[in-house]
């Protein structure tokens, strides 16, 4: 991040990337019902145009060997010492994210045209979706932590609006509130980190912060790192702030695919990767990142095994996969590229899986209970094929996307070549086995076995406007890993950001790792077949289950922990404060008001309306004035 070029050519227009979807959102929201008929097309077109522009910008960036381009826009805040210039930074890292956001975003916009075709709020939906894309692009394109923060809050708002899109459903409204509040907890961390940067370094721009962060005391750097991590945990649904993400599935399925699987929830990974120069200086914060990642990937995988709601299983899968990414970026220089590569492939196959789930729900009258599915493979052939490819990619089937990127993370963990490396690698392999188990369970319950449909359901394949994006994402599930790791290595592309890729001395040969991971995954698949595939799936979930299952069904009691650790004490605190406010503060205020009112009435009696009284008062005043002045002079 040493050198930047002034943006010229197309890169000078990169602000349009944000402006286009933002303008789309503005037109749709302000245009009102007049835009009902064509609003969704405009929304899709703006994101599509942004994708094309992003492609062209990336080509130009490649032409200048990835030297970052700095686009100065205007002075955002200039007060005293703080001078925040709003500017964009188009470098290889942001280019990767911009392509992911606009690319997957375009596909999901297209899919939504079909998915939301009969929803009366379609225009509002596309407006929010455009708003989200604009905010997310600002998040990854900003050249300072303040710009990132603005985008960060913007995506939080869009996420809130979209989770609560069907706001008349109590579940959706509650889920949106939960997501918003838990994100606030993380955002406080991010804001505090930015405050510390400004207080200590006097700047919030990436260039300024990374250039001088080395001069800070170790403790301060660690504090910044941990606070940034808190922000990242909130946005990315990582332990201990993971509980909102599965609930967020109350939103429409395209939202789950775009925001809560492919893009927004990976913002935490972006934040940590972007702040690499900070984390490189603080092994403590990095160790915490590792711990969070490892813990979350297990929690997500275990919870994923127990749920019957197809979207919640996928949501916990997302939590778990982002855990892998955190694990990777926590490893430091060895892991940044692996984490980002997994982020990209995950963006493809998880978005594809969610769109597939949406297609299934579409076919099954918005039902999400997998116990009511079964035998859908021949009714929904395209969905089955694309979903199946996404599934294979996710469990790391050899030579599909996940195989390359997940293995790279596990290898990088082992490459630490210490006891922690072995532990982390072991956790990651265990997670891969669990992933294979819960995803196979999902596949078996949804597409195979006896048809357990509700009476009168006639599943049918979705229209082309929905299947085409699914097919395109399935192609990504197949090939993205190969492209990013082998064909045009991401490591080379990101070299200007993270430095040249290290030729790691492998503690265990990659082939062995791949064999072990594939083997464990195979065991997971087999176990799923033994437990689920071979037997009849009961239509209602069995009540008498082992304590492990019960814990998993409650997502390892994350909500209970949150409630007892934060919510209850918070409620007690607010109740106590309300009591103090009512009795103490209000009492004092009311007493004071009564006192003033009383004295007002008493004083008011002097206002008799008689001139003689007034004149006497004036005379008295004059005497006092004259006496006082004389006294002052004499004294």
């Amino acid at each position, binding site marked *: 991040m040493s050198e930047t070029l002034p943006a010229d050519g197309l890169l000078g227009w990169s602000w349009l990337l944000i402006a286009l979807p933002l303008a789309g959102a503005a037109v749709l929201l302000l245009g009102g019902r007049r835009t009902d008929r064509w609003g969704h097309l405009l929304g899709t077109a703006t994101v599509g145009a942004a994708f094309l522009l992003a492609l062209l910008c990336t080509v130009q960036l490649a032409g200048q060997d990835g030297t970052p381009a700095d686009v100065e826009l205007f002075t955002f805040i200039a007060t005293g010492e703080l001078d925040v210039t709003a500017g964009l930074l188009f470098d290889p890292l942001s280019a990767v994210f911009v392509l992911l956001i606009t690319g997957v975003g375009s596909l999901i916009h297209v899919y939504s045209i079909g998915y939301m075709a009969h929803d009366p709020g379609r225009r509002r939906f596309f407006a929010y979706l455009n708003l989200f894309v604009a905010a997310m692009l600002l998040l990854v394109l900003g050249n300072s932590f303040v710009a990132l923060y603005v985008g960060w809050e913007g995506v939080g708002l869009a996420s809130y609006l979209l989770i609560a899109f069907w706001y008349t459903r109590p579940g959706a409204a509650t889920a949106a509130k939960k997501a918003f509040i838990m994100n606030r907890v993380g955002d406080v961390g991010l804001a505090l980190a930015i405050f510390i940067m400004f207080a200590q370094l006097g700047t919030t721009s990436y260039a300024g912060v990374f250039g001088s962060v080395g001069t800070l005391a170790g403790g301060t750097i660690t504090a910044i790192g941990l606070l940034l991590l808190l922000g990242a945990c909130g946005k990315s649904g990582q332990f201990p702030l993971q509980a909102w993400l599965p609930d967020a599935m109350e939103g429409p399925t395209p939202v789950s695919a775009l925001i809560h699987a492919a893009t927004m929830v990976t913002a935490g990974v972006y934040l940590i990767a972007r702040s690499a120069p900070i984390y490189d200086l603080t092994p403590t914060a990095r160790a915490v990142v590792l711990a969070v990642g490892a813990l979350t990937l297990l929690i997500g995988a275990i919870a994923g095994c127990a749920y019957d709601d197809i979207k919640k299983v996928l949501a916990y899968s997302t939590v778990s996969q982002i855990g892998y990414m955190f694990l990777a970026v926590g490893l430091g220089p060895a892991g940044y590229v692996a984490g980002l590569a997994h982020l990209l492939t995950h963006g493809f196959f998880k978005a594809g899986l969610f769109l597939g789930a949406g297609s299934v729900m579409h076919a099954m009258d918005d039902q999400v209970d997998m116990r009511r599915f079964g035998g859908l493979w021949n009714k929904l052939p395209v969905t089955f094929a694309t979903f199946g490819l996404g599934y294979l990619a996710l469990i790391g089937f050899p030579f599909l996307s996940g195989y390359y990127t997940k293995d790279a993370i596990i290898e990088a963990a082992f490459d630490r070549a210490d006891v922690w490396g072995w532990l982390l690698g072991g956790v990651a392999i265990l997670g891969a086995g669990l992933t294979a188990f819960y995803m196979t369970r999902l596949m078996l319950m949804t597409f195979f076995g006896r048809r357990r449909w509700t009476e009168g359901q006639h599943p049918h394949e979705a229209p082309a406007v929905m299947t085409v994006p699914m097919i395109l994402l399935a192609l990504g599930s197949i090939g993205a890993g190969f492209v990013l790791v082998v064909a045009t290595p991401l490591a080379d592309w990101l070299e200007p950001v993270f430095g040249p890729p290290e030729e790691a001395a492998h503690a265990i040969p990659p082939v062995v790792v791949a064999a072990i991971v594939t083997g464990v995954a195979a065991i997971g698949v087999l176990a799923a077949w033994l437990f689920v595939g071979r037997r009849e799936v009961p239509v209602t979930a069995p009540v008498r289950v082992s304590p492990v299952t019960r814990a998993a069904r409650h997502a390892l009691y994350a909500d209970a922990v949150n409630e007892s650790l934060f919510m209850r004490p918070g409620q007690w605190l607010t109740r106590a404060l309300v009591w103090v406010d009512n009795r103490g503060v209000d009492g004092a205020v009311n007493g004071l*008001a009564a006192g*003033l*009112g009383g*004295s*007002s*009435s008493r*004083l*008011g009696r*002097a*206002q008799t*309306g008689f*001139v003689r*009284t*007034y*004149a006497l*008062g*004036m005379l*008295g*005043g*004059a005497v006092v*004035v*004259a006496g*006082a*002045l*004389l006294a*002052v*002079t*004499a004294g």
Partner: protein
Amino acid sequence: MIEAPDISWGALAPLLLVFGAACAGILVEAFVPRALRHPVQVGLALVGTLGALAATVLLAGTREVTAVGALAVDGPALFLQATIAGLGALSVLLFAERALDPARSAFVVSAAVPAGSPRDRELATVPQVQTEVYPLATFAIGGMMLFVASNDLLVMFVALEVLSLPLYLISGLARRRRLLSQEAAVKYFLLGAFASAFFLYGLALVYGAAGSVRLSEVREAVGTDGGGALLVLGLALLVVGLLFKASVAPFHTWTPDVYQGAPTAVTAFMAACTKVAAFGAILRLLYVAFGTAEWTWRPLVYAAAIVSMVVGAVLGLTQTDLKRMLAYSSVAHAGFLLTGVIGLGAAGTGSGLPATMFYLLAYGITTLGAFAVLTLVRDGDGEASHLSQWAGLGARSPVTAAVMTLFLLALAGIPLTAGFTGKFAVFRAAIEQGAWPLTVVALLASAVAAFFYLRVVVLMYFSEPVADGPTVGVPGVPTTLVLAVTATATVALGVLPGAVLDLAERAAIFVG
């Protein structure tokens, strides 16, 4: 052979224009046909005041003492003359409003007819207008402009009478509730005469002690030791006379009664312009004549400020009539203005002068606007100024309620309004002079006063409308213009006060 005194006519152009317009108004009253009188009088008054305003702009930067040392044309004089002329023009517009009252005017047709007599009842509904109010008001404006420019205690006294006598008269000219109006006029006259006597007595004592009524010569007699008991006693009595005009407690007792009784347009005029003139004279007297012995009057002003703020804020709490409430608000604001006077500092080294001048402008504009809104809300008996009648006004007339809310917030000193900028300026000036206890009291008084301003806002927006509540009249062009100008200025002076503060800063040098 007496030599004609050397008079700089050009520098006196603002005064000459206003007095010229007033004299011409008398002739118009005598010679112009009745049907034409109203437009001609309004036009004449506007030409006089706006011409004076333009003249002060042209004279900007002038610093001279003229008319044998009787008049000072300097920054403060011109700034305050411009303020008075501008606010005066707006007041004339309020007088000229003909759309609101069904009888076409807020002024009585014939003030000499006894109230309640058969002839009076007959005239009450005649759509005739009485136009004497315009030359009278113009004379008062001229007197105020002379007041702030007088460099001589005798001229100051003459100006005081020139501004006061027409005010006494026009206070009694209300078309409705005539007895209340006449009572107000008589009270104002009696107490005003009483106060003038104090002023005159003080003048005599000062002349006796200093041998001159010229402010610069008084200053030489005062020196830094106060110049002896006689001179200080003279100062005390002069100040009493001026504090009466400025409605500073404990000399404020006339204010609520007169503000309530006078026609609302006249009340607006008095509240805005008289305050500016009185404080202009106080500043000049204390700065030019007694500035070198600041220690003599500082405790007095300090105490008067506290008493005025506390009395105004506390008594305002229990008022149920909006005009009376605004009267007590005026008393409290006089106290806030005195904190700016404290900010003058020893020998005028502080930043109190520009702060006070800015406050006067801001307060004048805001209070004029608030009274202008009062003229809109009416029931069968005229203006509905009882608090209970304003309940739920926000639902019935959102624009009126919003404009009133703006003025009340400005009076309360909420940021982004003119009132906040003004308060900030005077409090800062006072703190720079070490008067932070005074500033603490001022802040507390502001908080108390904010209660009664905000109570009206709450009443307008959060109460159910009363059943047979007042109607909100559709104002004609003049009142609309006044509301637009005052509301815009209230916001502008709150959001972008820089230019005007700068102007006040540059104007803040007395001559002589």
